[in-house]
């Protein structure tokens, strides 16, 4: 596909793309501060950093999406000004975004054609798509509509679309955050192959083990500045984390000797049709969460987690009152407010627009879930000081950083808003907490705070259900882990038995014990 000559250059003397002292200023805020970065052919280069470290900004500059305030880009030694992504693509830079830019109701080939210059016929594009997909072992049916595809398959479209432009440099933004461990392994094979073809790869991630395994070089950003460039294979995960965070991250510790007897949240044979045509049907889901324990639900996004959350919170009612039991009472037909009054609390996945109203003040967002049972409303009138007091308490207990006392939700950074959203519920001391993706897109410090708060809540006797795609997170907090696949929930595994391997198989749909033991045996034989 690509002239393989760069791969045969062992000295890697000339960088393909150099960022020289790149700065980007937004108002008073320096998102990038004099960053130098060299990307060489036939090399996988990791860009590591917490949320807000400036990774996305730097990558957007390199892809021509934004203009740097200072510094310059050099392509094969020549200074270039990228006034837009199309210029970047013409040079040979391809990008796979974290949030896919696909049209759900169009098929694969149509989506790819939309991203390519209109000089090629649709038939030719379909043919080239099939060929590219075949060559790289990324099976895709060009005729299939996107909404029918799993997240992993959608990512393949993005990768194939980028590869069809034959890029010399491919940028991937957090590509494994939506994949099962097995799907991630497949992706790594493809990336190794692209590297062998002489392409440069810039791999953005915050998963350290992955970077150690895959990448030749790692550049670490913190607070908009470059901290170091190193060989990740010679570092430990802990040393990389220290460079990312600039200090030790507090270890999350579970309290011991918890009493886990009383079932506080019970789901009994819950089946529910989706209300959205692209949604997932819940099939006979059963689970028991006892006071004092954290149960995790793993699974690739789109397997019914959203529908389960809506059914548990009461945003959608269950078919019968007995399908969901909170504190011994059937609540399947009660609404969100009534469930909150019974001591339940919920944290949805989407912070902006679901967990909070973005353009409303924090005090109003405190009222959003607090109006049911927190004394914030007296005879229909809002007790404004009480809502502000709740904001202050949350701010203090969860270290929410904000510019003023009562800003709009949208002005907080992701991590701080998530601390607010989780803290807002936990401070109400719920007996049952259902939380979806508690640390999605949140920096390591905030993630540790949130996870510790969940553990502490369980230690005080609450039943906590955590829905997460992040297996490391579940391993850290959960006592038992169940897996969701195609709307069905597996029997929960004890955390000690829930290896990545077993969970990964369940996430891919292998739901019998026998199959997983067989695979394990095979691996054992292979090793």
């Amino acid at each position, binding site marked *: 596909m690509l002239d393989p000559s760069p791969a045969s250059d062992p000295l890697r003397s000339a960088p393909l793309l150099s960022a020289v002292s790149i700065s980007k200023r937004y108002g008073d805020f320096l998102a990038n501060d004099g960053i130098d970065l060299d990307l060489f052919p036939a090399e996988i280069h990791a860009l590591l950093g917490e949320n807000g470290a400036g990774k996305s900004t730097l990558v957007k500059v390199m892809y021509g999406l934004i203009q740097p305030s200072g510094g310059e880009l050099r392509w094969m030694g020549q200074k270039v000004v990228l006034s837009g992504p199309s210029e970047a693509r013409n040079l040979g830079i391809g990008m796979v975004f974290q949030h896919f830019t696909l049209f759900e109701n169009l098929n694969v080939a149509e989506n790819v054609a939309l991203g390519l210059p209109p000089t090629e016929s649709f038939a030719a594009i379909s043919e080239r798509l099939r060929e590219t997909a075949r060559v790289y072992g990324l099976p895709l049916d060009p005729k299939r509509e996107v909404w029918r595809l799993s997240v992993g398959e959608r990512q393949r479209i993005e990768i194939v679309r980028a590869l069809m432009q034959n890029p010399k440099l491919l940028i991937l933004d957090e590509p494994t955050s939506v994949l099962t461990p097995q799907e991630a392994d497949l992706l790594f094979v493809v990336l190794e192959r692209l590297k062998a073809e002489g392409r440069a790869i810039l791999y953005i991630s915050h998963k350290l083990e992955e970077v150690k395994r895959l990448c030749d070089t790692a550049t670490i950003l913190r607070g908009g500045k470059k901290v170091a460039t190193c060989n990740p294979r010679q570092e430990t995960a802990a040393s990389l984390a220290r460079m990312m965070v600039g200090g030790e991250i507090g270890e999350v510790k579970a309290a011991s000797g918890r009493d886990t007897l009383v079932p506080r949240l019970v789901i009994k044979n819950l089946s529910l049709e989706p209300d959205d045509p692209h949604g997932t049907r819940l099939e006979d889901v059963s689970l028991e969460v006892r006071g004092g324990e954290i149960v995790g639900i793993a699974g690739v996004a789109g397997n019914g987690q959203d529908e389960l959350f809506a059914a548990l919170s009461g945003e959608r009612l269950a078919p019968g009152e007995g399908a969901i039991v909170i504190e011994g009472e059937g609540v399947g037909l009660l609404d969100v407010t009534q469930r909150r009054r019974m001591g339940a609390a919920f944290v949805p996945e989407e912070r902006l627009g679901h967990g*909070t109203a973005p353009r409303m003040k924090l005090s109003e967002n405190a009222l959003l879930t607090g109006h049911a049972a927190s004394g914030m409303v007296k005879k229909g009138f809002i007790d404004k000081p009480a809502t502000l007091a709740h904001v202050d308490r949350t701010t203090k207990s969860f270290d929410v950083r904000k510019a003023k006392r009562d*800003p709009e939700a949208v002005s907080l950074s992701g991590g701080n808003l998530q601390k607010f959203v989780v803290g807002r519920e936990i401070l109400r001391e719920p007996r049952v907490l259902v939380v979806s993706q508690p640390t999605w897109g949140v920096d390591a410090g905030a993630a540790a705070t949130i996870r510790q708060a969940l553990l502490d809540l369980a230690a005080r006797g609450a039943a906590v259900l955590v829905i997460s795609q992040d297996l490391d997170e579940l391993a850290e907090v959960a006592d038992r882990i169940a897996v969701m696949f195609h709307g069905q929930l597996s029997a929960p595994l004890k955390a000690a038995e829930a290896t990545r391997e077993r969970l990964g198989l369940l996430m891919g749909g292998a739901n019998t014990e026998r199959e997983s033991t067989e695979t394990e045996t095979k691996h054992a034989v292979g090793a």
Partner: protein
Amino acid sequence: MQLVLEKRAERSTLIAVTSPLIAVALTLITFAILFAIMGKNPIEALYVYFIEPLTDPFTLQEIAVKATPLVMIAVGLALCYIANIWNIGAEGQFIVGAVCGSWLAVRTNGTDVGPWLLPVMLLLGAIGGALYGLIPAICRVYFGASEILTSLMLVYIANLGLDYMVRGPWRDPQGLNFPTTAAFDPAASIGTLFEGTGRLHAGSIIALFVVMLIAVLLGRTLMGFQIRLVGAAPRAARFSGFNADRLVLFSFAVSGALAGLAGIIEVAGPIGHLDPGVPSGYGFTAIIVAFLGRLNPIGILIAGLFLALTFIGGEGAQISLKVPLDLTKVFQGILLFYVLACDSMIVYRIRLLRTQKRVVPVHA
């Protein structure tokens, strides 16, 4: 160089307050140019339109009379629009309110029934408007019909209903066959406040009271919070546990009641009887008032007075400048256009982008 709209981190409160003023200023400039093209002296024209009505106690009272229904309808509409519910049929609710209240006035005409007559008429007007407003609300909640279409179509039904009543059963026998009811008895009429100097009536005081009531509802109560939340973030509102359907019914009922109340006040006040000319587009003009007033009750009060000024000024200009009365509608259209344009500056800012690098001056 390139002009781009850039999203602000937080809404600009300064712009939110000043945007209607900027819009008014831009409209006045545009209007002055328009007058100049028409061969009139722009300064004189603007004076006739916007200053002259303020210099005379009679026209001052006229402005308040005109603003009363506009403001009352617009604060109700604001409730709907804040919650993203599109009640376009205030005109119909206005008519039905007028008809329902008039029913009692016509039934009791010529008899002395006591001082309860007028309050009950006002109550009937509000109830009639509320029930009529509930029709599109129910159609939306239970059948998924677009309230924009149903509420608008119901305006025409109300209009024809009014026409039937005043030409048929309620026609004044002594009315020389004109389609009108008999003039209301004094007990069924709202008197003027300052006898002999103008037409200002007690309905204006009710309108002020309504403005305060809705301001408190929106700003201080859980109900008002629900209305704002449903409009700002519907998914968060559902998560909050609020029932969006109930809110549709509530908003339509309240805005219908206020439009109906405005209708009966207009009939029992300045007009004094029911005839087919009662609906004069207040329900539609109130839509502009609601948006010009930033969907804020106090803002709507100011906007309502301002629009009333353009009506009165337009009448004056028609006489003294010989310009068509339709110019007032042009003015209102231009104004709405500028308001919407200025509003985008609350969330966005305009930025000049340099695509080329700046030339660094060489120091000698």
